[in-house]
């Protein structure tokens, strides 16, 4: 469990106050920050899984030193030259780049899981809410093509509020574009494993995230097509508390399993051994 004991997160989440303790955003328990970080931001009291950055996710899942990022230079495009009340999308994207140190809401590359090489796309919710836009879609399609070329499994970790409306229809088309990549992998008999983390919504849940050969989710992750508020406004009733939780989706048949973060790497390794029977 080497990957698990390393201290990982270099960035602090806003929820965690400076000092010795972190505060669980769900149960408000005070947790030694070291303990919290080394447990990859899982609350030891209530099992709340806090959102991870792409870098933290890589350090959690991928064997030390094996990750090779590709297409890191792909940055948001601005096909609509979009501006809203608060300014231009270009500025917003630049701010996101500066804030996160990422060029887009997804990091793609190749790496090993306990020695099994695979292709990865890992979303980072901090970058404009993990929204799906042209550069995100492009990177994911290129990752799918990479997996196809190398005859490897593709693993996508989703974390997204949905399509990035600043790129309008071009964002919407990324749903079809990424799914076309998944479709090619499927025809080639190559495994695609989708891991949904909190949150996975809209244009991402309605495209690559839910059509994994195997659909996994982290405990408590919120996953849905429409947002809770939109639905409540539409049907004019209150939704149950567990609506759109991973546990709710499992019960309704859309997840193969919910996997604790501490077991996720090992779990993926076990699954990959079955999925690559024919190819490796």
């Amino acid at each position, binding site marked *: 469990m080497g990957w698990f004991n390393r201290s990982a997160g270099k960035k602090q989440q806003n929820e965690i106050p400076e000092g010795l303790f972190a505060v669980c955003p769900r149960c408000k328990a005070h947790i030694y920050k070291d303990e919290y970080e080394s447990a990859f931001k899982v609350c030891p009291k209530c099992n709340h899984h806090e959102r991870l950055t792409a870098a933290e996710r890589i350090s959690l899942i991928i064997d030390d030193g094996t990750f090779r990022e590709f297409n890191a230079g792909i940055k948001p495009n601005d096909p609509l030259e979009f501006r809203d009340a608060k300014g231009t999308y270009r500025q917003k994207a630049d701010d996101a780049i500066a804030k996160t140190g990422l060029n887009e809401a997804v990091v793609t590359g190749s790496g090993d899981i306990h020695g099994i090489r695979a292709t990865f796309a890992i979303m980072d919710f901090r970058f404009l809410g993990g929204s799906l836009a042209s550069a995100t879609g*492009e990177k994911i399609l290129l990752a799918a093509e990479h997996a196809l070329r190398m005859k490897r499994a593709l693993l996508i970790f989703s974390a997204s509020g949905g399509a990035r409306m600043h790129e309008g229809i071009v964002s919407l088309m990324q749903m079809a574009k990424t799914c*076309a990549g998944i479709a090619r992998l499927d025809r080639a008999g190559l495994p695609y494993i989708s891991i949904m983390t909190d949150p996975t919504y809209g244009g991402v849940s*309605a495209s690559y995230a839910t059509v994994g050969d195997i659909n996994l989710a982290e405990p408590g992750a919120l996953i849905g097509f429409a947002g809770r508020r939109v639905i409540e406004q539409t*049907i004019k*009733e209150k939704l149950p508390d567990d609506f759109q939780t991973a546990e709710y989706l499992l019960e309704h048949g859309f997840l193969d399993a919910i996997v604790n973060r501490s077991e996720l790497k090992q779990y993926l390794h076990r699954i990959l051994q079955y999925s690559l029977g024919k190819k490796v």
Partner: protein
Amino acid sequence: MNLEFENELAEIEARIAELSKLDSKEYPQLNKDLGSLRRKMKSLTKKIYDNLSPWDTVRIARHPDRPLFKDYIDGMCSEFIELHGDRRAGDDKALIGGFATIDKHRVMLIGMVKGRNVDEKVYHNFGMPNPEGYRKALRLMKLAEKYGLPIVCLVDTPAAYPGKEAEERGQAEAIARNLTEMANLEVPIVVVVTGEGGSGGALGIAVGDTILMLRYAVYSVIPPEGCAAILWRDAEMAPQAADALKITAESLLELGIIDDIIDEPPGGAHRDPETTIARTKDAIIAALQRLKRQSSNRLRDGRYNKFARMGRVKQTRS
């Protein structure tokens, strides 16, 4: 019903209707006046429709008299045999399909049904499909593939239905599955956005080889009202959002999302459904003839490349 930017048109129309009741013997100027009114009507129509804002276009796309899927079925098809059910849970009333004959072409025709009066609207859930709708559509598309029939999809939906049961039965998965499977289909797929292209709910049947759009249809990642509420924090800013989102046929053609625009008659489809439907039919036939010449592999690869090109971003070393 007339939209507010059509008020002037409505006045002239009313005037023409009034004059038409008169007897030309008692009113010698009648024909001359009528002619002049008609000319004015025509030039004003052109002026208004040449200068529509994107938000105006949204209003036209949602116009209650705009031809709906059933009008297209009646107007384009010598035969339509509706096929029901998703073989899992139900028969969606907002998204229907079946065998259809358009000119000499036997196809699988699929589209959203909005309904005209209140009862119809409720029955068809205002054209907002549930997961069963997308699953039925996929079943029919696979049947079309088995039988070697081209697929024609007419898109006109505000959105996939955001309901509780829709979520429980996997609205997201149903759409995602269609996007994935449509990429694999080995028969031609022609898509026409005839009215509202409402986000993922529209895209769920819109992964086509040829994607056409009526001149005053719209196609958007989010309704302008929703976008305005989020980015302008004021749903009233929908016209601004509509503008920013580039949701008109012309913008989509420029962006490389659609292949062609089907022109609407002066004053929009709601003023002349017949011509609109005839032109749509012609455009579909032309697309079918083109696509039917392609092998299934070429079709599939072409479709892949088409969508892969959308929003292609080159690596920029910074």
